């Protein structure tokens, strides 16, 4: 009798356990998903309240490598503080119409992070100060500055940016702020081609003509092409901003993180089978360039278009 009961129980038990286990697994997954979603929403709200994760302000761009995210509210806390929105055209400035008002003297400011000046409030950028001083000194005239500055831009990128966007604003003068670093970033050597930042590079061909080399951009096409989800997150998610910023800081400061990240990237590349980094190919083979010669040529190209003022600033010595 006892054995019969045991047998009956042992026959029934697995069925019950199986059903229960299936239910628990399903419930756990749902619970996990629900709690993670709630946590993400709460953290996102908290980050927004605190103004954290708002320093993600650049997005990939097929022509420029990177550019500002239009309309993005940027809260910057590294080396200073600012809390301003990029304008609709992706400039760190107030909104500007393409057509200037009659009697307005427009000055386009080109440069890197020095012109962009995220470390200070928009009204305290040198562009705004220049605009105020010019208007104060010449009350009969109306001066307007437009800030095209973008962090990490090379002089080459600034030329492309001007031709692509800046010229539409029909400036009367351009102020180009540059340093040697910007010049060096305008050219790429054959040795650095593989690990360099994706951006348009320039060289002078054997006829002395300035040419654009977009092979590095082409090689990074997959990385730079629009990606709906990533671009949306970049623009709207503070959590995404935090993770990206942390990745940037860790890559910069932690050798172990760099190493592990390198292994992970290699593994992913190996797993994606045959889609490793594409070596930047160029139809134009050219020797390594003198960056100052290239910069001069870039400046010359702009000088033909509009009155140009050069501002050379020295990098602080470490």
């Amino acid at each position: 009798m006892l054995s019969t009961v045991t047998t009956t129980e042992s026959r029934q038990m697995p069925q019950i356990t199986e059903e229960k286990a299936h239910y628990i697994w399903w419930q756990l997954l749902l619970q996990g998903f629900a709690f993670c979603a709630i946590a993400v929403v709460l953290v996102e709200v908290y980050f927004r309240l605190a103004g954290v994760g708002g320093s993600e302000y650049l997005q990939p761009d097929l022509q420029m490598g990177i550019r500002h995210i239009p309309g993005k509210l940027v809260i910057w806390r590294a080396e200073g503080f600012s809390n301003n929105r990029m304008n609709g055209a992706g400039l760190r400035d107030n909104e500007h119409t393409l057509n200037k008002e009659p009697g307005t003297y427009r000055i386009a400011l080109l440069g890197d992070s020095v012109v962009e000046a995220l470390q200070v409030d928009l009204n305290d950028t040198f562009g705004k100060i220049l605009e105020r001083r010019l208007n104060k000194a010449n009350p009969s005239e109306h001066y307007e500055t437009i800030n095209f500055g973008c962090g990490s831009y090379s002089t080459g990128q600034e030329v492309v940016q001007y031709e692509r966007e800046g010229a539409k604003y029909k400036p009367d003068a351009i102020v180009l702020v540059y340093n040697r670093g910007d010049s060096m970033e305008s050219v790429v050597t054959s040795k650095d081609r593989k690990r360099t930042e994706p951006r348009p590079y320039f060289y002078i061909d054997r006829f002395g003509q300035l040419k654009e080399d977009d092979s590095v951009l082409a090689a990074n096409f997959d990385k730079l092409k629009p990606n709906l989800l990533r671009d949306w997150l970049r623009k709207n998610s503070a959590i995404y901003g935090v993770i990206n910023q942390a990745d940037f800081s860790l890559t910069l400061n932690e050798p172990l993180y760099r190493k592990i990240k390198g292994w992970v990237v290699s593994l992913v590349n190996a797993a994606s089978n045959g889609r490793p980094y594409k070596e930047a190919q160029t139809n134009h083979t050219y020797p390594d360039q003198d960056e100052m010669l290239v910069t001069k040529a870039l400046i010359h190209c702009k000088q033909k278009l509009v009155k140009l003022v050069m501002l050379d600033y020295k990098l602080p010595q470490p």
Partner: protein
Amino acid sequence: MLFNSFTYLVFLPLVILLHWLMPRRFRSWFLLGASYLFYMNWIPRYGLLILFLTVVNYFIGLGIAKHTDKRKILFNIGLCFNLGALCFFKYAAFLIDSIWSVFHFVGWQQTVQPAINILLPLGISFFTFEFIHYITDVYKGDSPIRNFKDFALFAAFFPTQIAGPIKRYQDFTKQLVNHVTFKQVDFRSGIFLVLQGLYKKMVLGDNLGAIVNYGFTHVSEMPVTDTWIAVVGFTFQIFFDFSGYTDIGRGSAALLGYKVPENFNWPFLAANLTDFWRRWHMSLSTWLRDYLFIPLGGSRGSPWAVRRNLLITMLLGGLWHGAAWHYVIWGGFHGLGLIISKDWHDFVSKYALLSNWRTTKLWHYTGVLFTLLFLFLAGLFFRANNLHDVWILCCSMIDFPASNALPHDVTRLFLQSTVPISIIAYCLFLLMRSISSNNYLWRYLTEHTCRYWSNTPALRLATYTAVALIILGFAPSTVTPFIYFQF
């Protein structure tokens, strides 16, 4: 290896995983190896120093227990050896510098000052104190640790190696003998402590530190609000920094199944200075009490003897913090404060009226306020670059001479930073944890929530992820070492 570095973030989970997967008999050996790896990550050769100190103290401990006739001499040798090591590495440069300053003062500068360039081994102040505690207790009759591996692990245990809490060997070896076992509750509390510690250090301490550092490097330019923010900020910065370190250490130990003593118990709620030292850096204050204050005579003897003992204990406690005169002055300031606090307590006890008042809430909160003010002032000696700065800051705190058109950079930095919202969030969290109400609904809600949280892994995981994200979001981009690492 810093607790707040990426390296530790990789190191700790690996150690925890391997530790629990490993057969029980190898766990101590494994932890010992991991602790040396942790220590030698900075300057590998200093691993030999800690090994040498361990070997010597191990044999001295055994010797004291074995040779009863020579125990006193062995104890003295051990004491001199540990203090000698501490003095050599920590105080040699300070001592020579001070002697040459005296020479300079009396106008005797015939010889060139010898250059002493010794890098302070991390945590030497802490592990030498643990060694002194060990040989003293063995000398007093406690049994020594016979197993070298256990003793070496007691000395090198990585969660407490660099900045405490200063362990008692009796408590630690008991855990080794009984073999630590995996308990979910301990593991959970370990994760909680590590996250809380990281929040305190990286979100509160480091962000506050940036503002405080700015203030203390612009001492003469600060108006009254800036000065108060910098001074109060420093007191809280050091608390968040050090208690954050302790939490991470205790949490790491709990994740490995070990319990290490607490170091902080709401120190800023202390109603007097004596109470404060019972709540702040508890492992050091009990060490100072047991191995310095009591051997000096403690509270026995005449009132003047007690005062002297208190002052000496705190002066040496100050010197222990760092090889510089401002630490000695800080210790002396606290010593004087303790004397006044004790005398005031004795005075109040004499009068029934005052004694009755002492039980009122107003008396208590006034005491808390005065203790805080004292701590802010004492913090000036700890943090300011020199005594001249201390004077300037004291004047600025009372707005003397009155400043008018000076910039309010520190206030601006404070308001623009994430510190205010982080502090509010942390205070709300503490409030929620500490509210004990007899209200049925509240009790039902809290108990039910806690039980649900404990029994729902998905919720726990989501909470941990959310807190980790918050730490990541609020932490500064560069890793700042813990303040107490320099001691």
